[in-house]
């Protein structure tokens, strides 16, 4: 980006070079203070030639030879003031030394100059960089940029910066206007600024002597605080929904295998892990091709199929023989989970592996300053919703779904009317496992992928299913979202670990009160 900018500025600039020679000399030969003054002057000029010169200084291309200040690029040199080519390259050259203070000024100056770049993204980035660390000398330039700025987002940021600067130096009217502008901001730093105005000084008076400004500041502060509080609430809401969707994904498969079929599958977490590692393998296959950004399209079905295959094999080989003995099923599936963990460790190593996000999932949407919703999380929320809808359709609208429901409600009767119950069991278990694989594919996008991935989700996902009630999907959805909210709200109040403990203890007590979960299926059997 920066290189492109440099080149474009360079090409643009080389024709119309005409900078004040005195300023350029100050930059080349002056001491620290003089250099800073020169930089400020160059910024104030705000034309492309100045930008090119400052960029050259930033890149360390500024040299002096005798009384000339040169911009040296490789074997070519240009007179920094006039833009004329200097040939041949003078032998005796010295680098212009820039100390840290000057460099810092230079950084701010470059950001200010980027404000006049034709590219919107560059301007936005520059405007962001300037909020909070703008210098008085940049005020004219910011005003100039504001006059020509068309983009609303950039304009807002610039107005904010302008207001911050005006507040320090401007006339009373302009300062009141500045305080009002600050009230429209969403930046937590602005709050500090406004608080600074209202602060009482040690002598008992106010830091800000003008009462009108204080009143305005009070109003702006109130508006700002209200907006920040909403931002915070929106942030908590988003993280809650995000956690809820993750819990939902992890628990949906379990809602089939445990909720509908009654199989305690302690290896469920490891099926999630299988999905995550499948995503990793698919990602590696796509790494050398040009379609890397699309690898998820292949990884989603692949992780479903891989986990479903493992699940069906388990059902055929082990679980089938243990129907009706839930405690034994629990132990046997735990054994399976240990073996799956060790298998993965043997193949992929005990360390976590890297799964990269495709480009469209990195970054995020910024609600307010500091409240960012990452795209990956948004995609996962949508994905969880899609999986939920897909599963609901499959269970209610297809023949397989009909069979599954029939077998779970009344196995002997279903068998009598010709439903192949054993095969339905295998398919249903495969479906539940496949959904665990999908969860693994999603989780690989936001968390670590390692052999212990499944262990960290198994307790949570059982809690979701148990809390929601066995036997239907609605309870699972409510329980997942409810636990997501409870966790995040408590987390904001007491910290993550205590929140988790509190939620677990709550569930333990809740189960005692309502052993069938929130949404119990009504039946007449005494022993459910």
């Amino acid at each position, binding site marked *: 980006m920066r290189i492109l900018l440099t080149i474009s500025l360079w090409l643009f600039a080389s024709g119309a070079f005409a900078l004040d020679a005195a300023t350029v000399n100050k930059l080349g030969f002056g001491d620290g203070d003089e250099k800073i003054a020169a930089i400020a002057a160059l910024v104030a000029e705000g034309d492309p030639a100045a930008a090119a010169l400052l960029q050259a200084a930033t890149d360390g291309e500024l040299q002096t030879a005798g009384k000339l200040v040169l911009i040296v690029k490789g074997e070519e040199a240009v007179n920094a003031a006039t833009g004329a080519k200097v040939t041949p390259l003078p032998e005796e050259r010295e680098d212009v030394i820039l100390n840290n203070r000057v460099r810092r000024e230079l950084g701010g100056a470059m950001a200010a100059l980027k404000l006049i770049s034709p590219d919107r993204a560059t301007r936005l980035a520059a405007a962001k960089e300037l909020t909070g660390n703008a210098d008085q000398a940049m005020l004219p330039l910011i005003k100039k940029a504001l006059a020509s700025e068309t983009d609303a987002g950039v304009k807002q940021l610039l107005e904010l910066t302008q207001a911050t600067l005006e507040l320090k130096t401007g006339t009373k009217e302009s300062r009141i206007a500045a305080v009002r502008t600050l009230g429209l901001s969403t930046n937590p730093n602005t709050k500090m600024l406004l608080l600074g105005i209202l602060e009482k000084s040690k002598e008992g008076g106010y830091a800000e002597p003008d009462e009108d400004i204080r009143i305005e500041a009070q109003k702006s502060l109130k508006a700002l605080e209200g907006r920040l509080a909403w931002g915070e609430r929106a942030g908590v809401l988003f993280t809650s929904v995000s956690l809820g969707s993750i819990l939902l994904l992890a628990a949906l498969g379990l809602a089939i295998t445990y909720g509908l079929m009654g199989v*305690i599958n302690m290896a469920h977490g490891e099926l999630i892990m299988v999905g995550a590692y499948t995503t990793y393998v698919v990602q590696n296959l796509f790494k050398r091709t040009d379609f890397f950004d699309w690898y998820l399209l292949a990884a989603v079905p692949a992780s479903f199929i891989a986990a479903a295959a493992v699940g069906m094999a388990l059902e055929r080989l082990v679980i089938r023989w243990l129907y009706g003995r839930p405690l034994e099923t629990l132990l046997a599936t735990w054994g399976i989970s240990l073996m799956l963990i060790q298998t993965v460790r043997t193949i992929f190593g005990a360390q976590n592996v890297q799964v990269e996000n495709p480009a469209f999932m990195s970054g995020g949407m910024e609600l307010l300053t500091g409240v960012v919703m990452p795209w990956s999380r948004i995609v996962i929320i949508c994905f969880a919703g899609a999986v939920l809808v897909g599963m609901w359709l499959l269970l209610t609208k297809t023949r397989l779904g009909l069979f599954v429901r029939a077998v779970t409600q009344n196995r002997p009767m279903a068998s009598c009317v010709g439903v192949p119950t054993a095969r339905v069991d295998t398919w249903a278990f495969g479906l539940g496992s496949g959904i665990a694989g999908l969860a693994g594919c999603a989780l690989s996008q936001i968390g670590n992928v390692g052999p212990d991935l499944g262990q960290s989700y198994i307790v949570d996902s059982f809690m979701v299913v148990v809390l929601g009630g066995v036997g239907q999907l609605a309870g699972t959805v409510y329980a997942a979202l409810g636990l997501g909210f409870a966790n995040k709200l408590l987390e904001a109040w007491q910290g993550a670990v205590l929140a988790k403990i509190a939620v677990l203890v709550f569930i333990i007590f809740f189960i005692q009160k309502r052993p069938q979960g929130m949404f119990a299926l009504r039946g007449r059997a005494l022993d459910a």
Partner: protein
Amino acid sequence: MTGGISRRLYGPRGWAILALFCVAVFGVMPVLNLAVPADSPFHVSAYWVTLLGKIMCYAIVAVAMDLVWGYAGILSLGHGLFFALGGYSFGMYLMRQIGSDGQYRQPMPDFMVFLDWKEFPWQWWNSDSFWWCAMLVIVVPGLLAYVFGYFAFRSRVKGVYLSIITQALTFAAMLLFFRNATGFGGNNGFTDFRRILDIPIATPQTRMALFAITGATLIGTLLLARWLTTSRFGRVLAAIRDAEQRVMFCGYDTVHYKLFVWTLSAVICGVAGALYVPQVGIINPGEMSPANSIEIAIWVAVGGRGTLIGPLIGAGLVNGAKSYFTQAFPEYWLFALGLIFILVTLFLPQGVMGFLGKKK
């Protein structure tokens, strides 16, 4: 079934095995470890004394687990928690016994100095008293089990539901103990013990004494469990396991029976934990991980549920295999353990004891 077991447990052969075990623990081991010179082939090294002592602690836990699972049909996935609580209770005393010999040469335990705590938190009240901590070893797991069991059994939570909830309980406790602020050393737990009752802990004599006490506790636990399960109480318990509702309709209050055996089992686990900590020399929240608690269940399953002797054998077999595998082929231990889980549940539902019984 109960008749057969009582015959087997009380028969002449049962007594003979018990006597042999007593001779081994109280006679042969001390002599071979302390009296036989170290270069003799008959010498039993400190490693073996510690290992066998550790396995005997596990065997106590397995017998306690058999009481609730084998006889009352309650599969607990939280017994590791009771074990660790007993260990932590006694560990507090051992930490206080270090005195000022810790790394920082201060009267507070090292981790508290490290966290810059000036006073002991309330949990540590009176923890320099041996008898107080010994009481905590029994009271803490017992109280937790009683309260939890009271609510769970009263609302008729049972079967797999109960298993999952106990797992959540131990998981929550593990998270709690991982925090430094809980006051039990966080990640690292307690270690680096020096003395017990002002006697240095690392001498062969102390080690042997702890070994013998563990052996005595194991025998005591076994006799207690045998008496309980062959009494009228044990018969009601087995009836509850097999048909709880029928027992209720006969007029028994099943909650009290289950609650008693559940609490007793937790207390025994706590005692085992307290014996385990000074021998192994460390206790940390890892002991509370759900995986550890499930392993206890597999010891019982391997040996055979509802046989009391079986779980003892199972704990020995599984842990013996574990020590061997983790040294010889560490990468295959999880495969082996997983296979044990699967094969035993599929092919040996009665465990080793059932297998032996069939042969006869």
